[in-house]
């Protein structure tokens, strides 16, 4: 088939959509701004709920989309609307005329340094969920390597459900990620006390609740309901957090050797720019706007432009993959109807 399809973003959504489109007989063009495929998941270590290595998931997908046209380290320079489709110009100089565009642009991780009160970038022993996954992968982080870690704290909802941080949405995956990481840390530092400071625990997914029970019963992770208000540092370089245990109604002050911030999911700023080239606006939650938020989350107000994955809001990997497959089908149906 000669219909060109451009997929913007080589994360889970982009790759899964490309895989499905290849199976349907198309040869999609996939552009990815970084030098590798896999998006955020490529930086991760293990995935809940079965501790699947993230690399296996990414590699599996990469293997299956070899036949697609893949441009790495390439961005969309501009898109012109034409009578029968779009003219897309890439930053590598390639110019494509296509009938459908899939925006699988994903998310940005909230910049934890913007919550200055948590001291990321100011205090030595503060890191983010991504930093911790990187350490799981590389084993190299001066905050952990060679340190005597006795107490670890996880702060949930950093930059999510926080009007002051400019993002009121729930990032969906941080609760379970924190529990996963807490348990992984407990395995690596069996003598350490591990605390999770949460507002709510939103454990909606398959086997998430089991994870939570296991974390409490087997791993002995302490769950404290209360938002961390401020963080300071002592002479030994440890961090001191202030919070309130809202279940007992008492203020608490805990000295920790390591503080992990669960940075949330916010809309990809660059994606907003790309989307505006094809007249796709942002919804009131800051993410890209679908045609309809119940039955038509894939389509947009612009003909031939489709969405998949976290570009429209926080999602888990299975959800993203399902949406990508739906998007591939929607594109196929659209192209069939066109010809």
């Amino acid at each position, binding site marked *: 088939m000669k219909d060109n399809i451009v997929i913007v973003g080589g994360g889970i959504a982009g790759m899964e959509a490309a895989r499905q489109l290849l199976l349907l007989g198309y040869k999609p063009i996939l552009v990815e701004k970084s030098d590798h495929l896999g998006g955020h998941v490529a930086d991760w270590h293990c995935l809940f709920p079965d501790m699947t290595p993230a690399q296996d998931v990414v590699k599996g997908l990469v293997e299956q989309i070899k036949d697609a046209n893949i441009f790495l380290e390439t961005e969309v320079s501009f898109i012109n609307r034409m009578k029968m489709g779009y003219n897309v110009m890439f930053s590598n100089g390639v110019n494509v005329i296509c009938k459908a565009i899939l925006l699988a642009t994903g998310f940005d991780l909230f910049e934890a340094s*913007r919550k*200055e*009160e948590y*001291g990321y970038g*100011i*205090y030595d022993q503060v890191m983010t969920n991504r930093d911790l996954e990187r350490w799981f992968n590389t084993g190299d982080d001066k905050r952990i390597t060679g340190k005597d870690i006795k107490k670890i704290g996880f702060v949930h909802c950093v930059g999510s459900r926080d*009007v*002051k*941080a*400019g993002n009121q949405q729930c990032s969906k995956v941080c609760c379970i990620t924190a529990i996963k990481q807490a348990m992984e840390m407990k395995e690596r530092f069996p003598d350490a006390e591990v605390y999770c400071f949460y507002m709510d625990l939103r454990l909606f997914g398959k086997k998430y609740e089991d994870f939570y029970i296991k974390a409490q019963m087997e791993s002995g992770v302490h769950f404290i309901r209360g938002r961390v*208000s*401020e*963080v*300071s*540092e002592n002479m030994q370089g440890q961090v001191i957090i*202030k919070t309130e245990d809202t279940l007992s109604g008492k203020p608490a*002050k805990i000295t920790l050797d390591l503080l992990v911030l669960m940075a949330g999911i916010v809309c990809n700023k660059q994606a907003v720019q790309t989307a505006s080239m094809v007249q796709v606006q942002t919804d009131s939650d800051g993410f890209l706007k679908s045609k309809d938020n119940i039955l038509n989350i894939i389509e947009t107000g612009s003909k031939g432009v489709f969405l998949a994955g976290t570009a429209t809001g926080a999602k888990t990997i299975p959800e993203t993959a399902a949406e990508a497959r739906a998007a591939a089908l929607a594109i196929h149906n659209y192209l069939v109807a066109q010809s």
Partner: protein
Amino acid sequence: MIDRFASGFDPFVIPFLIGMAFVLVYCIIGAIRLILQLDAEDKKRFFISLITPKTIWKNLKDLFLNCLIHVKLWKRNRMLGFMHSSIAFGWFMLILLGHIECFIYMPHRVKLFYYPIFFNYFVAENETTIGGSVIFFLMDFFLLLVLTGIVLAIIKRVRSRIFGMRRTTKPSLLDRVGLYSLWLIFPLRLIAESFTAHISGGSFLTIPMNMMFKAFLGDQMNMLPTWWAYSICLCIFMCVLPFTRYMHIPAEMLLIPFRNAGLTIKHARRGFAKAQVYSCPNCGVCIDACPMSVKKANIKDTTVYLNRNIRRGNEKRIEEISDKCLLCGKCTAVCQVGVDGPQMRIAQRSIRNYGLEQDYSGIDITPFKEAVAAEASPDRVLYFAGCMTALTPAISRAMESVFRKAGVDYAFMDKDGGLCCGRPILMAGRFGQARQIIRKNKEIIKASGASTLVLSCPICYKVFREHYKLEGIRVVHHTEYMLELVKAGRLSPDAGSDVLVYHDPCELGRGSGIYEQPRELLRHTGELVEAEQNRDMSICCGGSLGSLTLGFDKREDLTRNALRNLKAGNPETIVTACPLCKTTFAMYSDIPVEDIAETVNKHLK
């Protein structure tokens, strides 16, 4: 000059007399009521000021400069200044010259209240009056001046933008009655005096008009009706005056002595506060100034509407307006009569009955005292970061680094937690609770043996300076302190090439009058550009603790507007001296935002 009528009376003066009597009685009773509403201490202060030569002189000077010449308005917009001073000063001179005329030519009539006002009707010119032509000239001159002002006022009604005002208030029905009668008074006076100019004498304006009237009308019968119309217009204006915005004319004459006596607002609806309410001319300058009014929002929550609703007794709106305000003080900075919007609102908040009265007297401060305790020393510095700085640890870390690099012997009062400075609760009008906190903090400070208290947060700084009364302890904001260290040679920041803009925090600038020190300090570290509106015209960042009800989602437009203002000179970095401004700006700014302590620390070796 001779009397035209032996009685020296004509019925047309009656409307004027009624109006005059009404407005005088109303204002005198009102003034007495406001004075009686002052508390004993303020009353004493007020009466003493009335007999102190220094304040008497200041009162006279302020009355002349503000009520007649409107100096402040001239500074704001020359057209606006000219319009007001031509009407006020011109009218005043007409009254004054009328009395002088009467004194010179008709001394036996001076006791008649109305005589100087309608002088030209009651007298006839004779040979002995030639020397009076100077006064006749002046009378016509000032009448012309007032008429020019009236023409400008009419133009302003139609096109207020010429006068530098974007938005203004809508006049009420009575305001309109007052306005139109005021506009009519002077043209009528001109016509009336022109009709009698061949009898009473006149000058360059009235004589030619008299000739013109004679040529066109040739009828003496028009004389009396125009004098009646003039008198009736005066009557209408004076009768509606107490119920219109024009009440600001007499009220300001009381407000100025009140202010010069050093009174402060003690009760939101009585005494000094009430004098401010009545002094509000409803000009609406505060609408354009209010940071909340960006994108035409919250216009009805500005100080002018607070005053209007207090006069109308609309309790629901008074509460809403009082609670919403950010207390940034810009309305006061632009106000021509000096209505203190923030203080009025705090006072209003303080008379509310709260369901729950917190008690902070039981807080144990022993550990805080022990942590800082030391022998008293003139070199010892106590650093209080405050709650807002606890949320922006980069600032307190920078300050600690500055202290170390300058070799300062310091103690960090709230490093391991501490008490609030009391300002937020003071802003909420809960004075009793604020006093409890202040007392506790004072004990800790006294125990520290420090002679200088350094603060990072302007919110704390203002309350420490104004409410703590720390005898023997100097209270300084870190901008002042770091500049002192630089001047003393204890810090030598290396000059950089960054282009910086300084944002004046409300509580540090308008609140405490510190504008120059931070700028001087920043000139040591980089190139300083200015915002479009700066210093006392600086725009609140939108993060203020002052508002009790303005939602977080409603503040984004305010912050973005303030950022736009700051970026006028294309700076690379925004520097401020308030942790709250820093946090607020950082949320929406696309260029870095930092505290002055961080900027200075970066430039130290």
